[in-house]
């Protein structure tokens, strides 16, 4: 227990030092890369809650990531143009409004998708979540007001009172704080009463039903919480990259989130973050040398999945002597 806190604090400190290290070594792109990896880690971790802890294999998680991002983009668009969304809701560039709004809208979308897809299971569930995500993808492509296929440029990162958000390093630290807070939230969530019920449903849904648990309601709640997390990650990403596009919710993105979870370790807290970090680093490094970076990434995934049952987290546990 003590040791876990020590590791978490050390990792947080090291990550907080990234902008200084980048400046000292002249590798200024590091901050941007690590920031993106952290945000992808959040999205993957939110997927991992339903996939790893809840046993719901959703193949449409990028939809909520994209929706969260578009909330920020659309609100900025209206703020910039001085118009209102649907003629009622005025735009804004205040992060204290855009982030909660993104989380809320992503949660509503998850409630809608979950209410319909959670009536099924297994392969049907995978296909229905995928179909919903593709529907959102094409919906946003067709919205010409918001850039269609090109997406929305957000010229300025959302403002946060008291901070200079135009400073890239400040923005990175804000992202880091959100990622840390989200990690702690998930840590709490899986240890909560609700977390126990969800773990029970993953192992044996029929048994939970025989104990008086209406499993559908619990799964839907988990699905909504997970969608909200992805929405938060998407909203941060649009702030970080100052750009929202339909690509955020393309089905390959959903696949990437899944790969991050599996690579890092299904049903572990740190796994998705580690998976996101490794996958994103390997991708960007290899992309510099070759167009065909997907081939070595695929081989890496195969090796990890085949050799270590439980992803990189299992490997780390083995190397550190079976400790948590």
């Amino acid at each position, binding site marked *: 227990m003590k040791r876990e806190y020590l590791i978490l604090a050390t990792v947080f400190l090291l990550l907080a030092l990234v902008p200084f290290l980048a400046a000292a070594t002249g590798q200024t792109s590091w901050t941007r890369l690590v920031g993106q990896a952290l945000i992808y880690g959040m999205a993957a971790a939110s997927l991992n809650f339903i996939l790893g802890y809840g046993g719901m294999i959703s193949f449409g998680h990028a939809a909520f990531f994209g929706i969260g991002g578009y909330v920020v983009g659309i609100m900025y668009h209206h703020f910039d143009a001085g118009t209102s969304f649907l003629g009622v809701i005025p735009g804004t560039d205040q992060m204290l409004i855009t982030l909660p709004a993104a989380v809320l809208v992503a949660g509503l979308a998850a409630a809608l998708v979950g209410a319909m897809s959670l009536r099924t299971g297994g392969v049907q569930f995978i296909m229905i979540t995928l179909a919903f995500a593709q529907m959102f993808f094409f919906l946003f492509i067709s919205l010409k007001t918001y850039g269609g296929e090109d997406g929305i440029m957000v010229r300025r990162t959302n403002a946060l009172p008291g901070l200079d958000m135009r400073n890239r390093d400040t923005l990175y630290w804000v992202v880091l704080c959100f990622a840390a807070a989200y990690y702690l939230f998930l840590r709490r969530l899986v240890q*909560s*009463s609700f977390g126990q019920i969800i773990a029970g449903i993953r192992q044996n849904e029929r*048994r*939970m039903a025989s*104990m008086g648990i209406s499993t559908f309601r619990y799964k839907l709640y988990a699905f909504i919480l997970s969608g909200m997390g992805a929405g938060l990650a998407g909203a941060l990403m649009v702030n970080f990259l100052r750009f929202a596009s339909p690509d955020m919710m393309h089905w390959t993105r959903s696949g990437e989130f899944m790969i991050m979870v599996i690579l890092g370790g299904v049903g572990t807290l740190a796994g998705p973050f580690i998976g996101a970090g490794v996958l994103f680093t390997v991708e960007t490094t290899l992309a510099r040398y070759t167009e065909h970076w997907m081939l070595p990434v695929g081989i890496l995934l195969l090796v990890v999945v085949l050799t270590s049952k439980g992803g990189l987290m299992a490997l780390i546990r083995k190397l550190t002597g079976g400790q948590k």
Partner: protein
Amino acid sequence: MNHVLEIAGLTKTFGGLTATDNVSLTVNAGEIHALIGPNGAGKSTLINQICGELMPNAGHIHLAGRDITRLPPAERVALGLGRTFQITSLLDDMTVRENLALAVQAREGGNFRIFDRAANRAEVWDEVAEILAASALGPRAGVTVADLAHGEKKQLELLMALSQRPRLLLLDEPMAGLGHLESQQMIDALLAARGDCAMLLVEHDMDAVFALADRVTVLVYGRVIAAGNADEIRANPAVRDAYLGEEDT
């Protein structure tokens, strides 16, 4: 209205097959009522209708005076229906203690709390400790369920079902696959629990049935062919023909 369970005219058909044919039976408070019959007699189908996993085509099921015929399974549990499964159905990744804790927590409520700590819920863990202290499974509390022996799993099923404090417990072949000694332990455990709840017992082990049951109902091809106390059933020629003759030599 002293019946904990009252089934009237229950009928269930699958295509041309009538799996439950106008079945009526009652279980009184504190009673162990055994349901016997050869394979394919429709015992499991009947159990699944009482639980709510199957919907009957006709007839009514009352639990403690309330009509539960159309209620979803979880609501029936809330009204006091507990069950064990024919093929043990537990949470295999968790320990014995965690399985029990989840059963107690499910009953206690607060299941939607996301900011508490399940490990700190004293009311849950105290009760789990009490249950384990009174059980032969006590020393095995920290063992993962997947590593338990078959008989231990059966015992854990019973403990979890009882921890729900049901009014009526449906037992689907609790002796299945148990050795002689384990069967005796199970019989003792059921006898000890009889004061707490009524039971509807589906069982093939006739020694267990006659050791436990206050009343017996015999089901053949979905139909009740006889009902009465153990001695009456033993003496009933129709039952001997249909069933007992083969197994109870």
